[in-house]
């Protein structure tokens, strides 16, 4: 069997490792756009930025890659997929044949018009990006973060802790609202305000201008105000990397649409894993796409098992964490927009809290801040698909 993996980051690398561990002796080709294997990304927006001794950890060393008996085609991009002939084209003109294809091209930072990367304007994706942001933070740069999602909030928080003046510009009314829902995102937003972050909510960027008074840049907002900046970090989310699949017949409207086994819908022999996969998770009515570290590694295990004919579905509880404001924010499950939120330990302003989110007696998510241990019993209820009332009962409160 010939397996072609496109994407040399977490999901792709872990798929190959899992395949070999399952005893699969397929001929494996790994196509990756970067000249090497990617590094482990979660630390890049977390400890790496503030720890002067931290270095980026590669997912695999060259000797690990050799042990996996992979044909690496690194520094080459996949340009198209021809499902009828079962080949992938590359930017060096080759056509690589496959019996099974794993799409693990991940996602790339969303760029905003007028804020394309250049000196002083930065996205955060690679170790080199993170090193530039780290250098600026260490030099007490005046930082403007465009986008108040998890990555933006982490960078803002780290900047504040390192003594930088930080402004966050977010078009929605609160930080991290997509991941936390309205109530919890408001509570976390207040904490960022208390940490001294200048928040500009419900507003966008109109233009980037030359700065004045010792700052290189100035960011003009849609409300007419201007914010000086030495460094602008664009953290406006990520887009699944599916441009190369245009014309392939795959549904790649928001990631590659897959069934519960992570097999691409309508095209046999093709799987997707990681940020690029949108799949039918049995807990959710609509197909979901997640940009979580844990989803990527779980996808890798499921895809490898299915390449070995095991017929596994992916149904794990989603988990994402974010280090900010001196604590760890942990989200198990998914907070839905119409969920009621109940604090079961602490409250919106306490140093630590555990909150549960749910609707109509369905427990959807457990969220903890600086409460790694305290959230465990609630997480167990969520894993056991217990109702919301059981979690409230555990907390000794009534619905």
């Amino acid at each position: 069997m010939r397996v072609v993996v496109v994407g040399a980051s977490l999901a792709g690398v872990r798929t190959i490792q899992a395949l070999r561990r399952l005893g699969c002796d397929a001929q494996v080709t790994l196509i990756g756009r970067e000249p090497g294997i990617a590094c482990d990304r979660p630390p890049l927006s977390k400890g790496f930025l503030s720890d002067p001794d931290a270095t980026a950890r590669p997912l695999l060393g060259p000797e690990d890659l050799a042990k996996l008996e992979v044909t690496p085609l690194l520094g080459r991009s996949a340009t198209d997929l021809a499902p009828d002939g079962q080949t992938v084209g590359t930017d060096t003109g080759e056509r690589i044949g496959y019996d099974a294809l794993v799409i693990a091209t991940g996602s790339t930072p969303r760029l905003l018009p007028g804020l394309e990367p250049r000196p002083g304007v930065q996205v955060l994706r690679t170790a080199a990006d993170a090193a530039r942001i780290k250098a600026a933070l260490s030099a007490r740069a005046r930082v403007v973060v465009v986008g108040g999602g998890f990555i933006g909030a982490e960078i803002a928080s780290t900047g504040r802790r390192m003594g930088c003046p930080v402004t966050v510009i977010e078009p929605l009314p609160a930080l991290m609202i997509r991941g936390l829902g309205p109530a919890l995102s408001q509570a976390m937003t207040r904490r960022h305000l208390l940490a001294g972050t200048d928040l500009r909510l419900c507003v966008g960027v109109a233009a980037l201008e030359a700065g004045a008074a010792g700052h290189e840049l100035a960011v003009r907002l849609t409300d007419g105000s201007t914010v000086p900046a030495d460094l602008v970090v664009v953290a406006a989310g990520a887009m699944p990397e599916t441009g190369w699949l245009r014309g392939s017949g795959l549904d790649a409207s928001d990631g590659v649409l897959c069934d519960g086994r992570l097999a691409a819908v309508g095209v046999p022999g093709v799987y997707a894993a990681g940020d690029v996969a949108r799949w039918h998770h049995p807990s959710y009515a609509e197909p979901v796409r997640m940009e979580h570290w844990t989803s990527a590694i779980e996808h890798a295990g499921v895809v490898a098992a299915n390449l070995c004919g095991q017929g596994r579905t992916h149904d794990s509880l989603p988990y994402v964490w974010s280090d900010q404001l001196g604590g760890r924010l942990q989200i198990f499950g998914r907070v839905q927009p119409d969920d009621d939120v109940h604090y079961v330990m602490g409250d919106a302003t306490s140093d630590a809290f555990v909150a549960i989110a749910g609707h109509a007696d369905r427990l959807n998510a457990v969220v903890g801040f600086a409460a790694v241990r305290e959230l465990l019993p609630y997480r167990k209820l969520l894993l056991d698909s217990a109702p919301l009332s059981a979690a409230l009962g555990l907390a000794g409160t009534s619905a």
Partner: protein
Amino acid sequence: MRVKVDLDVCQGHGVCHMSAPEVFELSPEDGHSIVLVDPVPPELRDAAQLGVDSCPERAISAE
């Protein structure tokens, strides 16, 4: 197979316990991972490996 958790590196994400509850428990004191079966019997090897792979901090090693 033997599985070890480096408690200086473990951050209490608890993903190992979600992936392989037969092999990893979490300490009620601090949420850190505790290996339940050492050495790991052959029938739990795959589960243990899942737990090792699932650690975001790479705190778990197998040999």
